């Protein structure tokens, strides 16, 4: 590839090419580019969710750097004399004071603060929806399990990094959040007090939390996340992108736009769209008005004390939990806080481990590059919706006071509804979703066999009225029948025909049962076979 041996062309070559030649001679740029610029990226809006995450992450980093230039991560006490009148003369920490200064005295400071915060809100929301699209389309199946895991770690770290960032200004709202965290740490049996002293460097609140959180928030977690994002993207490129089934789209190819130049132009444009939307949001609406909350003081608290939305489900857990306590040998076990502390990671783990459970249950070890339409995996779709319903009901629980005041309800009634729903709603959501999926499968089957309803009514010579059905185009038929329908695992008879008892492990029995639940008769509608299709469509143009 190198053209260095041709002095003539070297003279004439434009500067850009010269630079490229230079790089090729050192790092083999052209070969690298040839293989990567021709990467294909399919066109479907849901494949851009990952990009929304990526761009908002970049925006967060850029604005965060600006904020660090002015923020003082210190809990040393000062008296405020800045330009925000309603707080003049009030004692506060330097962290809070410097955040006020960023908001009112640094040029562009408030806008950048708001971009940083709104971007964080959108970032985690984007990750959740991105994860949902990966979940419902089965994009997590082999070979992408590792990337699913990377993604999940990003989600968890994004949540915690957000929580830490929200805690930094040391305002009354976030201070209450830290206090709540202290309560949760204290509720851990036996070591709770030690952990709390370790975390806060002594008695709460002490002087250490903000500087410690600062380091974790701006260095440790973003560093790890950056590494994970890169690994995540490398794996996306390495595995190539998945795609929805369709004519010409197989498990072995990817159909779409080449990365260069079409896709790159689109993606570059999309970056500016994301930046633009988030900036617009930040120019329009206030987020986290720390000046209104006031500085943190352990003897003060305000109502409407909630964390940012992505921690809302943990708030919900704590709010719906009855305040149980056990006293044992002079020690108090605060179950009312400890149980939510345990359930909190379980809610997240439930979704994280699902891909591994599914592949174990179904025994499916093949590679999948074609996505499932959610309806064609009713059990998975049902479980996903059940999880979402649980998540949402916990969010309602976390905001129970606002639901009470804005819908004129009793907060106690809401709490009870959430408590019951916590157990009842997910199964109900599962059953309903699965039924809807099966209904949609039935409709697909109808469409393939009998074509699309045209709305045209025809009168036959003998007087009968029929609606004309138009056969589907070949591509559509393929799309509706491309998925495979696995058979449930069979463990076979435990006693063979000679009466010899075969040992079947308990786990295997469980697995067969679950597999039956995933792929058994009640869980999928047999798709039309080619013969069925042939028979009906070749026939007599009947309806």
């Amino acid at each position, binding site marked *: 590839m190198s053209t260095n041996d041709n002095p003539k062309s070297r003279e004439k070559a434009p500067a850009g090419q010269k630079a490229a030649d230079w790089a090729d001679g050192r790092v083999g740029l052209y070969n690298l580019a040839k293989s990567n610029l021709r990467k294909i990226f399919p066109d479907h809006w849901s494949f851009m969710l990952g990009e929304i995450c990526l761009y908002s992450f970049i925006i967060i980093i850029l604005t965060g750097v600006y904020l660090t230039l002015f923020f003082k991560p210190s809990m040393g006490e000062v008296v405020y004399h800045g330009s925000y009148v309603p707080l003049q003369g009030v004692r506060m920490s330097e962290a809070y004071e410097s955040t006020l200064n960023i908001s009112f005295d640094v040029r562009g400071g408030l806008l950048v603060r708001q971009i940083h915060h709104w971007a964080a809100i959108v970032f985690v929301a984007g990750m959740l929806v991105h994860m949902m699209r990966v979940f419902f389309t089965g994009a997590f199946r082999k070979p992408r399990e590792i990337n699913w895991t990377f993604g999940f770690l990003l989600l968890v770290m994004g949540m915690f990094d957000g929580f830490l960032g929200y805690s930094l200004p040391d305002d009354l709202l976030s201070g209450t959040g830290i206090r709540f965290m202290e309560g949760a740490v204290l509720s851990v049996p036996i070591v709770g007090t030690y952990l709390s002293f370790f975390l806060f460097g002594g008695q709460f609140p002490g002087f250490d939390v903000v500087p410690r959180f600062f380091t974790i928030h701006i260095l440790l977690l973003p560093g790890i996340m950056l590494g994970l994002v890169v690994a995540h993207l490398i794996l996306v490129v390495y595995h190539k992108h998945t795609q929805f089934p369709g004519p010409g789209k197989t498990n072995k190819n990817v159909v779409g736009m080449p990365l260069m130049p079409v896709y790159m132009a689109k993606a570059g444009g999309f970056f500016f769209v994301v930046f633009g939307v988030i900036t617009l949001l930040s120019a329009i609406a206030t987020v986290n008005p720390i000046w209104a909350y*006031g500085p943190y003081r352990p003897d003060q608290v305000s109502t409407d004390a909630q964390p940012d939305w992505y921690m809302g489900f943990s708030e919900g857990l704590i709010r719906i939990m009855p305040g149980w306590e056990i006293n044992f040998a002079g020690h108090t076990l605060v179950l009312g806080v400890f149980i939510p502390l345990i359930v909190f990671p379980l809610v997240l783990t439930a979704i994280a481990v699902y891909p591994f459970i599914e592949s174990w249950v179904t025994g499916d070890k093949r590679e999948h590059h074609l996505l499932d339409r959610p309806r064609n995996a009713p059990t998975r779709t049902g479980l996903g919706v059940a999880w979402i319903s649980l998540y949402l009901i916990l969010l309602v629980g*976390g905001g129970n006071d*606002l639901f009470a005041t804005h819908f004129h309800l009793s907060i106690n009634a809401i709490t009870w509804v959430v408590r019951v729903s916590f157990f009842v709603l997910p199964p109900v959501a599962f059953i309903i979703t699965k039924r809807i999926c099966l209904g949609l499968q039935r409709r697909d089957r109808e469409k393939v066999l009998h074509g699309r309803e045209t709305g045209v009514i025809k009168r036959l010579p003998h007087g009968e009225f029929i609606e004309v059905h138009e056969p589907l185009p070949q591509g559509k038929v393929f799309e509706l029948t491309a998925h495979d329908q696995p058979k449930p695992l069979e463990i076979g008879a435990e006693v063979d025909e000679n009466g010899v008892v075969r040992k079947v492990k308990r786990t295997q029995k469980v697995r067969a049962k679950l597999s039956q639940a995933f792929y058994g008769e009640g869980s999928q509608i047999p798709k039309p076979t080619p013969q069925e299709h042939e028979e009906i469509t070749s026939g007599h143009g009947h309806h």
Partner: protein
Amino acid sequence: MKKLSVRRRHPLAALVVLLFALAATGGLYAAFAPAKTAQADSSSQSIAIEEGKKLYATGCSSCHGPGGQGSTDGPSLVGVGAAAVDFQVGTGRMPAQQPGAQVPKKQPIYTQAQIDQLAAYIASLGPGPGIPSKKQYDPKGGDIAAGGELFRTNCAQCHNFAGEGGALTDGKYAPSLRGVDPKHIYEAMLTGPQQMPTFPDTTMPEKAKRDIIAYVNDTTRADNPNPGGFSLGRLGPVTEGLFGWIFGLGALIATAVWVAARTAKARKS
């Protein structure tokens, strides 16, 4: 107020009230009898009480009993003071209408003159906090920053950091403090309506009350320039999260759908 209402039911309460009343009338007489103008005052006072009694009989006695001693439908008003009446009737809470978790605020149905008469009548039933003077509650004299500190310590746990209101148990609520008359804020602190604690001058001096009023008046005033854009109700992260999902991620997903629909392939077909 809660302490007072417990003591109200003490067996000796009637005696104490009687003594107070005797002392008060005696004292008043001694103080005002010689002066002619004072005579006119006290006679206009007694006219007000008379008028108030009439208003009370038609509007309030069905619930609070003919002599203000209370009934199953309303508490005793003996000793609640003129401030309580001025607050309750002046904010339209009284006369109460349908039963509910909490008597809501509404358009007052009495004029200020009538309210003063009602207050005079109720005050004549037993001593209680009087209506504050303008000097006491004028927000102009207060220190906003100090008031903010006091507000966050004493009031924000129910009324929210910016006085936007909040939920209490069983459908009760601390109302938003937007547009509340400074006088009523003072009276609310003085009399502690319903779930709200009382903040008598012994625990919260007059100056502190004025500072709080100055703060409430400042944060809730309609022309407060909310820094950073729309305030989203100043209700904390819940509304922010909702807004971010709908107008942030929602707008981005809408754009993504739009972009993906405009591919070369889509245009061809």
